[in-house]
């Protein structure tokens, strides 16, 4: 049982050491608000581990296990099956991992979990780099973005996490954004009630890593959606549905502005990226119901 030493409105303490303006903090509060406390969280080392706390102190009021960087999906699969074997079919097992622990080192265990059809809700908060260790590039870093290990701008494009999930034909996956919290919450609610592997890919604005003023987190994510850099869509029972259909995408400069990580992108690279983003959006629209 937890010793409640601080009051909190929800299941996460109000004073947690996430950076000011951190998108992940906003995401986890909304996710847990929708899911309730009959859950078990699996959290890898990384930014989200700060919610697990330090020593005997934690910022979570729900059961959680802090595993390793690459096997959140594996722990979650074991926990989920363990509950099932004991006839507990109501407790939701939720992995809450970053892009590195999902798309790079975590991809194998995620793939195994999805292929087997394990009953796990996997949430990837994507701040587009290894932020907790100091802003190193990951396969989720967009092309052109500065990180400490892509100082000239990442030369290759971002891995398509939802594309990978769809290739496993899982029952449900969706992208979400703090720019549209009602949509995010609706998707969490939908995912909550489906059995099997479900994946939510949520863009997580990071003032520290992206290099912008802390107050711009929501605005930047809105721009991401409006420019097509982050597409809100769902995949359910084999069909794609783009949630926010935009007739015209804003120029990519609208998304890059404020962000130091795109400050030195060349004109050619920017144009290439804009074409890539717009083509991707068009392709998704074409596949969409």
């Amino acid at each position, binding site marked *: *049982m*937890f010793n409640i030493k601080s009051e909190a409105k929800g299941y996460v303490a109000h004073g947690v050491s996430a950076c000011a303006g951190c998108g992940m903090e906003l995401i986890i509060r909304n996710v847990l608000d929708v899911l309730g*406390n*009959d*859950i*078990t969280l*699996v959290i890898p*080392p990384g930014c989200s*581990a700060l919610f*697990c*706390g*330090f*020593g005997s102190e*934690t910022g*979570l*009021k*729900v*059961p*959680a*296990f*802090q*595993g*390793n960087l*690459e*096997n959140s999906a*594996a*722990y*979650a*699969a*074991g*926990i989920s*099956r*363990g*509950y*099932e*074997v*004991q006839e*507990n079919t109501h*407790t939701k097992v939720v992995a809450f991992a970053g892009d590195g622990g999902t798309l790079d080192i975590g991809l*194998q*265990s995620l*793939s*195994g979990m999805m*292929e*087997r059809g*394990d009953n796990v809700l996997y949430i990837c908060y994507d701040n587009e780099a290894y932020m907790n260790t100091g802003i190193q590039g990951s396969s989720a870093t967009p092309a052109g973005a500065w990180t400490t290990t892509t100082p000239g701008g990442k030369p290759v494009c971002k891995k398509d996490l939802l594309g990978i999930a769809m290739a496993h034909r899982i029952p449900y996956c969706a992208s979400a954004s703090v720019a549209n919290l009602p949509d995010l919450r609706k998707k969490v609610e939908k995912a909550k009630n489906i059995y099997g592997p479900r994946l939510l890919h949520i863009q997580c604005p990071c003032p520290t890593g992206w290099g912008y003023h802390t107050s711009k987190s929501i605005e930047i994510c809105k721009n991401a959606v409006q420019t097509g850099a982050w597409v809100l869509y769902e995949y359910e029972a084999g069909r794609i549905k783009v949630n926010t259909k935009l007739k015209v995408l804003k120029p990519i400069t609208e998304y890059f502005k404020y962000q130091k990580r795109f400050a030195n992108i060349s004109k050619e690279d920017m144009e290439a990226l804009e074409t890539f983003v717009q083509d991707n959006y068009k392709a998704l629209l074409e596949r969409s119901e």
Partner: protein
Amino acid sequence: MTHYKMLDGNTAAVEAMKMARVKLISAYPITPQSTIAEKLSEIVEAGELAAAYIRVESEHTAMSCAIGAQLTGIRTATATASVGLALMHEVLNVASGCRVPIVMPVVNRSLASPWSLWCDHQDSMAERDSGWIQLYCENVQDVYDTVLMSYRIAEHPEVLTPVMVCLDGFFLSHSMQKLEILKQEQVDQFVGEYCVNNLKLDPADPMVIDNLTGSDEITEMKYQQAAGFERSRSVMNEVFEEYAIMTGRKKAVVEGYRTEGADAVVVTLGSMSGTAKYVVDQMREQGKKVGAVKIVSFRPFPYNELKEMLKGVGRVAVIDRTTGFGGQGAPLWLEVKTALGSNVIINDYIAGLAGRDIHTGTIQAVFENLMNSREEAEKPVWIDCDIENAMNIREVERYV
């Protein structure tokens, strides 16, 4: 009414896991363990074992699933060998650090490189600091017995330490031997239900497990693990005693064979122990005062019992079925040497690597070398190695 079966080591391990009523299996196939993963899957499918089977995509995941599931309060099963155990390495430490008492058969097989399918102890020796108890089996009956006893040892509330049950690849895993199988009621009574109540994932009793911990506490937590290891020594003896009463088969953390009045003793680990005892008998018949000592529990190492058993013995040969590069000796020798001290000649013999048979000739050569040593060997003796030709076994033609 006792009941016998002809089983190989792998099947005997499965039989024990089945009778212990494991509730979740996550095993990844690897030679020579694969038949364990297969057989478990078969008996689940056939309804002989009521358990969930997670068809994992790697050993790293196999151990992760087992830890996650066991934390929710059920007994799990996994098994591996060789590089599979090596791949599990990171997660083994999570099991021991979070005090999750998993019992895992390890089918001893050489580590790459070079690639080998065959037996040696490199895999489990590489995990000797993992915080897992390590028990080594001599024959197929031993495998069955040891797996059953391991649940009691691991799950004891003052031990709470996972156990590796080591059985030699092919020599035991694939060798058919006759063994006695207990009645299910006996096993239910002996092993009991899983009722570990330490760190657990329970929505009705929530906690956050394995979070970042400070320098101000980890030393004490590691001390807790050391205490668990210490406690396991007496728990093992109690469990061995209880099992002996039930079956007539008495194990000990170290077992001596004809060590009384011996001038020279060979120390062994695993299936080579049977061969050693056979050679001891032969040599005793020739009037040579020799004996054999089998280490059963490598971790925790039975240094006091070994000291007692080898009191007065002037010469000891340790057979290390692993390489021990860079050390003054290989792992088993290091333990024995530390226990017995410097007034005894203790030679380290590297033998049996990658499935090279430790046959009667090997043991005889070991004794011969030991008896002819005027002083302790300065470094390990590669007793079954073709030293003369070792550097010349590959020649290629190339442009220089």
